């Protein structure tokens, strides 16, 4: 079965085993019309990094305004717009596309396929992203400025917003379409195009995490599209889904949004788990501990993620029984997440550890993501959450999970696979500098925000009372340090591509997935033109 699909998918290439004869178009058209998983993966990653810088600049505008109490730099409505688009751009423009980029690059190479199952759809799902990004950026210049409604776009505030809201809604639609197409492609590729002998339970864990993530995306993105479409019709076509005066319910929006929103958290986190599950065993020179339990834990997290959405809404006034249910269900997630953390530590236990940049970022991920997980546990307790909901404690919590979690894992993945992708090595010393600067500045920025939230500073405010001044100043300094450190990352990657030393085919001693053991560095344009045999 898999052989047949495999042959059909690269029919025109049959017989061109010699990689010197790769037919790739040159110039702009290579990228515009590309159906190659590596080119598309590269575009995803560069797009993601560009959005990361755009969202980062917005974050720095926020932190600059919050450096001192009082309004110094921006007006409140512009501040609200910055928090909104910082969130949207980082979630939908930076983190998600980054991991789709990884999926494109790695899944065919890790399962022994020549390319993705639907190369043309793959092209489309990438090229939907730039127009969506342009809509989000254009929203800033719409009459009245960007929509200052928060990335969660709660009704009925969205009904008041200006035309920027419509641009944002359409951007979300387009991003959703792109994600769904990408997910269908990933699911089909993994289920149908594995090399002979590559059983599901033999796949590298990264492929497993993406298979699960893709199902989450297919199930949750349409829900988000529904929520924003209802907002759109409430705004323009006289419907009253979220308008109490017309018989609707503003809280309904929150239920729909978070039914998407909580799985979304895991859409971001689960591929990050996958990357880390590749990196830690490689630098421990020891197989991943508890492969099967990792798969089951990931699947459990995915299923549970659909049953906990209302823990984002503990203060809307639900019946006490409902709150109890969501509190219990939420704390359950700690169990499979705990299993994963224990497995990673057990993988390192009695290994033969080295600490190259990818391993440093993976350990940074492990340490800080777990910290974010623990604050998540604190937040899951309803009476405690009532105190710290919508405060900077929550801001700190999700930045530990999203930045130290997803972003650090993405850095780990990029440093890990850069030699395979480019055939060249990055500068190890600079890589370590990037890690330590990111680690220190990240904590300076976000650790103090726990204290701000506990002491009572609400989130999404452009100005604050005087007792919050010191920690805000510290946080802002950290943010600028963190932001500038990322320019070092850009330099390291460019230097690696242009003038890095030649990388080995198996650059990392402990790496054992087939992209390292069976493919040269750089990997050929079409990964496996004949299916490899997996023992």
């Amino acid at each position, binding site marked *: 079965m898999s052989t047949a699909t495999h042959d059909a998918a690269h029919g025109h290439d049959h017989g061109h085993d010699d990689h010197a004869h790769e037919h790739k178009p040159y110039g702009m058209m290579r990228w515009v019309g590309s159906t190659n998983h590596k080119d598309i993966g590269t575009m995803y990653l560069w797009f993601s990094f560009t959005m990361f810088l755009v969202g980062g600049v917005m974050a720095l505008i926020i932190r600059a305004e919050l450096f001192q109490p009082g309004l110094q730099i921006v007006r409140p409505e512009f501040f609200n717009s910055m928090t909104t688009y910082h969130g949207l751009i980082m979630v939908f423009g930076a983190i998600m596309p980054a991991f789709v980029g990884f999926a494109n690059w790695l899944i065919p190479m890790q399962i022994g396929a020549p390319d993705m199952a639907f190369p043309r759809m793959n092209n489309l799902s990438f090229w939907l992203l730039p127009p969506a990004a342009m809509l989000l950026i254009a929203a800033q210049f719409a009459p009245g400025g960007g929509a200052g409604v928060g990335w969660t776009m709660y009704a009925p*505030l969205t009904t008041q917003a200006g035309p920027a809201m419509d641009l944002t809604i359409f951007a979300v639609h387009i991003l959703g379409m792109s994600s769904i197409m990408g997910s269908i492609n990933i699911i089909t590729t993994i289920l149908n195009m594995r090399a002979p002998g590559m059983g599901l339970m033999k796949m590298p864990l990264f492929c497993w995490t993406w298979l699960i993530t893709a199902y989450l995306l297919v199930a949750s993105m349409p829900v988000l599209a529904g929520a924003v479409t209802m907002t759109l019709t409430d705004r323009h076509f006289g419907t009253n889904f979220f308008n109490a005066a017309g018989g609707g319910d503003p809280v309904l929006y929150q239920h729909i949004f978070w039914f998407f929103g909580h799985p979304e958290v895991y859409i971001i986190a689960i591929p990050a788990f996958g990357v880390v599950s590749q990196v830690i065993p490689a630098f421990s020179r020891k197989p991943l501990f508890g492969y099967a339990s990792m798969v089951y834990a990931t699947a459990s997290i995915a299923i549970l993620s659909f049953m906990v959405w209302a823990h984002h809404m503990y203060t809307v006034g639900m019946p006490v029984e409902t709150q109890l249910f969501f509190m219990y269900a939420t704390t359950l997630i700690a169990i499979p997440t705990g299993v994963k953390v224990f497995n990673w530590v057990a993988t390192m236990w009695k290994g033969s550890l080295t600490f190259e940049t990818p391993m440093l970022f993976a350990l940074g991920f492990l340490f800080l993501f777990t910290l974010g997980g623990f604050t998540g546990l604190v937040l899951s307790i309803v009476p405690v959450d009532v105190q710290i909901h919508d405060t900077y404690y929550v801001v700190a919590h999700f930045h530990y999970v999203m930045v130290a979690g997803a972003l650090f894992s993405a850095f780990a993945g990029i440093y890990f696979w850069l030699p395979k992708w480019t055939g060249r090595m990055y500068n190890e010393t600079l890589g370590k500098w990037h890690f330590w600067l990111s680690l220190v500045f990240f904590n300076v920025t976000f650790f103090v925000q726990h204290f701000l939230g506990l002491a009572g500073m609400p989130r999404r405010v452009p100005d604050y009372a005087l007792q919050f001044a010191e920690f805000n100043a510290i946080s802002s300094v950290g943010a600028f340090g963190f932001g500038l450190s990322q320019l070092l990352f850009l330099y390291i990657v460019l230097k690696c591509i242009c003038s890095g030393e030649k990388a080995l085919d198996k650059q990392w001693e402990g790496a054992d997935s087939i992209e390292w053991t069976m493919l040269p560095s750089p990997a050929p344009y079409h990964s496996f033109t004949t299916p490899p045999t997996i023992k």
Partner: protein
Amino acid sequence: MRNKLAQIFAALSKAAMLLMIPAVAFAEYKLNLQTPNTALGHTIFDLHTIITWICVVVFVLVFGFMFYAVYAHRKSVGHKAANFHEHFWVEVAWTLAPAIILLTMMVPATKSLVMLRDTSDADLTIKATGYQWKWGYDYIRGEGEGISFYSSLSTPQAQIQGTEPKGEHYLLETDTVVVVPVGKKVRMLVTAADVIHAWWVPALSVKQDAVPGFIRDTWFKAEKPGIFRGQCAELCGKDHGFMPIVVEVKSAADYSAWVASQKANMKKAAVAEAPDKAWTLDELKARGEKVYASNCVACHQASGMGLPPTFPALSGSKIATGPKEGHLAMVLNGKAGTAMAAFKHLSDADIAGVVTYERNAWANKTGDMVTPAEVKAARGGGAAPVAAAPAAEVVAPAAAVAAGATGALPAAVYYDSGKATASAEGKTSLDAVIAHLKTNADAKVEVTGYTDKAGNLAANMELAKQRAVSVRDALMAAGVAKERISMKPPATVEAGGDGKQARRVDIKPTA
């Protein structure tokens, strides 16, 4: 025991902070939740401390193992990798252990959650309504019932913009404060008029979203008197960061004194704003300027230029210089689908003032005046759509005029809201009655003034009586003998409809 833990935790965190940033160690850093002022708050505070400590212990354990491996199992010290990759019982153990820890945590969490949501048996019930961007409070039940006021940020713009030094309670101070008695269970009903807000006072351990169209509740019982400050906790638009909450907890005696003074103030205000008070243009403008400053200025700006296009300019606007009915309706009912909220919650005098002010401020020089009585009349339309509201006021239905013109009794003389002189339509029917009485020299009539039960009943009755008297005077002035007119006591009609039936004087042939 628990408090001790909390202290140790605070001390440890402080020590960690001092190590991290010695240069700024002397400033005042708040590291933990605010000191609670309710019994429930203490429970929650301790719950947070315990859970945080459990997390810290597990964290230290897990990463103790990790850092030991990082230290001892390095390749650089010659450690050779083992090859184990699963262990059934270990995996079962570390699935079950967290499950047990979590179960233990759920016991106190469930208990305090049930306490948190028990709003029964309240001594005092207060409704808090979120508006963009201030809070409104109504004391619904208990001592102080009937007290009602708005509370907005009192920090001057100059402090926010940095042209003046910031005060001690920067952004956490309001013009009026919510006063509650100590040791009494206060139930807060929380709702909103426009978008979602959240009523949050950290030291009282209450945070409740204010959802427009729905009423949610929460409660607190303060242990000690004092002033407690909070903020709106749900993003509600431009000035989300500028709508604080201040709660003053007073002793029972002080609270009673406060209630008495509030009631006295309300009485004074009721007299000052009696519906038949004749307002001058300058009085209304002066009042309106104040109302504008606390309700409108955030969006439409002091200059009246707004922040287009979301917040349009009022200076020179078509609505503020057009027919006053349209302007009044806009202020009363808002405009669906825009940031313009309904301001029906303001008093008649406030709305009359602010509309009058807007029509005569900046570049607007209409010279118009909108009286509280006109506002009251416009409200009669209730939730009528914006355009329909003023219609009841101006249109004289052809049928009614025709009925008057036939001279047949009974006839109804209609009045404009709040006025004791007949409307144009009313004058027509009055003339018809006079003509009828002149031609039928022996006809006798009885005159009854009508009103409804909306608003101040005594004032309404008085107005109805005045109107009846004005009809009698008009008939007598036209030469109808006093003996032919019998005066009936004023009567009420049920509230509802367009209110027109409540603004009439009936003239019927005497039976």
